[in-house]
């Protein structure tokens, strides 16, 4: 994973977007953003911090300082496993996990998501499948994701797929809701 931001990467004032913090605070999860005391309890509780480029505490600090670029390009936002350890431990009731979703949405919209990890692609493929059918199929979904990221992984995963198949734990039938178009309309109309 990438190096932590250190003194040599110091940003200039011009790189900051001071509205960024306000915008994030208004989206779901941002409610108590300005209450953060930078205690680091979230980072300590986070099972993924060791693999992240910035810890959750750093991300909060960076959002408030307006380091939009760095935040929206960070892998942290995508490595979050939604385990909610941070959210339940935060003394200021900051919904850090929900905040990560709102940052992912921004990064996808602005096309600033990190290209080296497959998670953003998987989010899009999953979303598309739900949009189309109203249900997901694990085997098909993963096939799409591997084809869109690293087709070689498809070969690497074949033994597992066969094992699932043999144990009756995989089928390639695309299940769907009765009227997928109605579900699509529902989603469109709140956009």
């Amino acid at each position, binding site marked *: 994973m990438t190096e932590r931001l250190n003194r040599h990467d110091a940003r200039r004032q011009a790189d900051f977007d001071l509205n960024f913090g306000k915008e994030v605070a208004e*989206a*779901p999860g941002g409610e108590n953003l300005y209450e953060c005391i930078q205690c680091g309890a979230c980072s300590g509780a986070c*099972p*993924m911090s060791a*693999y992240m480029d910035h810890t959750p505490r750093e991300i909060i600090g960076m959002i408030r300082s307006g380091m939009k670029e760095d935040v929206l390009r960070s892998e942290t936002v995508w*490595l979050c*496993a*939604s*385990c*909610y*350890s941070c*959210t*339940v431990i935060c003394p200021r009731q900051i*919904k850090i*996990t929900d905040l990560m*979703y*709102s940052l*992912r*949405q921004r990064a*996808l919209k602005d096309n600033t998501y990190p290209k080296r*990890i*497959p*998670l953003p692609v*998987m*989010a*899009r493929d*999953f*979303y598309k499948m*739900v949009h189309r059918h*109203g*249900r*997901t*199929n*694990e*085997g098909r979904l*993963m096939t799409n*994701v591997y084809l869109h*990221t690293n087709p070689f992984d498809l070969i690497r*995963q074949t033994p*597992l797929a066969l*094992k*699932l198949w043999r*144990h*009756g*734990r*995989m*089928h390639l039938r695309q*299940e769907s*809701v*009765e009227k997928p178009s*109605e*579900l699509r*309309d*529902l*989603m469109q*109309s*709140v*956009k």
Partner: protein
Amino acid sequence: MDYLYYPGCSIKESGIAYEESLTAIMDVLNTPLQELEDWNCCGATTCISVESDEAIALASRNLALAEKQSNSKGTVDLVTPCNACYLTLMRATHYLSERQDIAGKVLPALDKQGLHCDNRVRIRHPLDVLVNDVGVKAISDHVRRKLTGLKVACYYGCQMVRPYATFDDPHRPTSMDQVMKALGAQTIDWSLKTKCCGAALGSLLPDIVEQLCHDILREAEKRGAEVVVTGCPLCHFNLESNQSAIRKRHPDFKTIPVAYFSQIMGLGFDLPPKKLGIQRLFIPLPASLTAGAGKGGEYVTA
């Protein structure tokens, strides 16, 4: 009480043994589950990574369907065995009551399709129903094959207990332990029962997830557990399917079977293993646990 049942996609596929065994034990306990008609994927943590309002609309459609299908005019109980679905549906109920901006868009959009969400749905994990509605007493009354001496590690994962659930403690939950003890089994005391396994990152960032799973499994093994017991198809998948890779990296690691709590309950109720999807597990359960099950055979600890 009537229980509607929201299966979720995983439980219809890799987690099918969970559905098979859960249905079987709930029938024995006279608490049948009625599947929600025309349910859609809840969207998990993935759709909300793309768009919030749409994600909440998607999940809320299931809530509205539940209100429509239920005979109850008051609270509707929707039982949700997948941790990710449990969290996602629960999140929708919270957003609808806490975020006026989102509710203001989602509720009218549902109305237009003849679906109404009046905030009447209670999302319930099966363990919540078992401990708080059915009760451990009723469970032990149905035990036909006491699992005395069996040592299990109850693994809850994260999203069953965090951040919304109120039926158990977010870090040191006990409901699964209570159920296992009602069967006569022994549960190990450990601090990793709610440590994250890496979730959906599993198939995409295998190195990280293998390491997280290794920590959890190793601890269970060290404390003498014979089986790791889970209550989520994704937790189950990660903990089970990563073991061959873990063994390559850590040759001293021994494999440990991973089962659903409902499968272990079924074995305690003396149901036939086939009905519980036991043959679908990659790592077989200890022979002592399955031998003679469903035929009135007594359990003798290995």
